[in-house]
């Protein structure tokens, strides 16, 4: 997913302007002329300058490339549903874990995510389930038992307690 530098520059400029405007809401201390807004503002100005330079560079690149210039160059994987689905699955797995892990629990989520991904990436169903089970067990022992990390028990709470 390569964007033309002008697009990235444009995004940065908009971001910088938004940020600088937001820093105006920061209060300052009495008698102190340098407050919490100074450093972010400097960063904002820096991003503004570099963003503009990037826009200039991107536009020049596009002009030089002529007919072949693109605003966005999609990778070779776009349009291949296999890869697109895999990518969405990975992102969805992470989002699902973020929202559901407390409710569902670590072990079921882990088994689910691992088996689905392993299967999608090429292993057979039985191998996927096996590896998923082993990995979940290892993770559980290492983190929950040895390092005492409070991984959520979720649906299995009834079984454990």
């Amino acid at each position: 997913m390569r964007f033309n530098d002008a697009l990235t520059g444009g995004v940065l400029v908009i971001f910088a302007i938004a940020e600088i405007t937001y820093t105006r809401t920061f209060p300052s201390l009495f008698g102190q002329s340098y407050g919490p807004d100074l450093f972010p503002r400097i960063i904002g100005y820096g991003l503004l300058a570099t963003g503009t330079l990037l826009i200039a560079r991107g536009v020049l690149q596009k002009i030089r490339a002529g007919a072949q210039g693109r605003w966005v160059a999609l990778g070779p994987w776009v349009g291949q549903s296999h890869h697109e689905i895999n990518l969405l699955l990975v992102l969805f797995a992470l989002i699902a874990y973020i929202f559901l892990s407390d409710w569902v629990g670590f072990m079921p989520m882990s088994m689910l995510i691992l088996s689905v991904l392993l299967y999608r990436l090429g292993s057979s169903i039985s191998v996927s389930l096996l590896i998923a089970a082993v990995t979940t067990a290892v993770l559980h022992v290492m983190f929950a038992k040895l390092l005492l990390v409070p991984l959520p028990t979720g649906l299995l709470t009834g079984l454990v307690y």
Partner: protein
Amino acid sequence: MLLAALFGLFIGSIPGLTATMATALLIPFTFYMDPVPAIACIVTTVAMAIFAGDIPGALLRIPGTPASAAYCDEAYALTRKGQTELALGTSLVCAAIGGVMGSLVLSLTAPVLAEFAIQFSSYEYFWLACLGLSCAVIISTGSTLKGFVSLLLGLFIATIGIDITAGHPRFTFGSVEMMAGISFIPAMIGMFAISEVIRFVVSTAPAETVVQQPIKKVFSGIGIVLSKYKLNVVRGGAIGAVVGILPGAGADIAAWISFAVSKRFSKDRDKFGTGHVEGLVDAGTANNAGLSGAWVPALVFGIPGDSITAIAIGVLYMKGMNPGPTVFLSQPELIHSVFVVFFLANLALIPLGFIAIRFSRQVLRVPRNVLIPIILMFCIVGSFAINNTVFGVSVMLVMGVLAYLMEENGFPVAPTILGLVLGTMLEDNFMSSMIKADGDLMGFFSRPIAATLGILVIALWAVPILRFLYGAIANRHL
């Protein structure tokens, strides 16, 4: 330490998994250890990983870590000639020698620098942090402009949270989680590991094949090679240590520079590219020496020498062992134990690496499509474990996607990490300096050390600008 070494071997030898990623994944474990064992783990893992990166480089022509990329073509050519053992054995021994040399440099120079650094005040620290960040931007791959953008992004992310001067929450948007700032370990795990996962999932390249060859006696012929190239070893180690000391430049850059120097000054220049072991000697020594060198600024100033030490500094801060000259005063026994650990870790490379080479073919058989989901799960749990909140996983996800998009568009990721780690230190010293000098910018040059550093930094900034202008003028004339 043994486990850490095996871990490093495993990660380093798999192409695409870097030493930095190994460190990032290791952090949740070191969390629960005392500082010295934690550092021991990190150092061992990284030393092994950097060496282990040579193994797939030689067997598959795919470097396991970027540091091995400089000479992986040579190593592969040696394999095709049937001399795998020579290639790998040389890498191993040189790695160990390089590491020991680097450790020597570390233990000798660090206390000396520390005495000098006691005199530092906020102005000096500010310029030093600037120096480190500028080095990182200039040396990073890709255009300097984009490197600078990455840096600014990293610095911006560092400002999220409660402000230093007034205690005002910045960019938190009401979220309690964000008030603590963006914890840099999930960010690191996201930027290095998750972006790699995404890259793998969308890549359309076919899987690579292993050269099937039994690995016989590893150490035969090494003695001859070493005695012939004594000078190369010393030179490689020196280059590695010095480059490693530079903030922002790490093992990979050390290896490239050393390989280039080796080729330039070699008597057998034409043999390079056909499977000549000299380049391996130089670069192999350099990249391990670079690792130890990177710890010098880390321990003495708290400025990371490369991304691995950036992570390590974070770990040290968490344990209350604040890197910087005061550590040499208040907890010198910790520092001395760290030095000893360095020596041990690098010496342990030889037996462990030997086992590694023997088993290298087995390790490379683990297919990446099985490994990637496992790594993903490790990352999720690791990010969660840092603060025991799912927010860590969210940070990891966001940073991972960001890093993927950044790298696709030529924005290097290393300056962002450095910006994230050094951002608070930079702002802290900047604000104290501004308040002390009451806005007088000449205050930054008022002390001799500060003035020298300041001029150095400004000169450093001027170089790319001058180069750009010169290039533009030269183009105009043509």
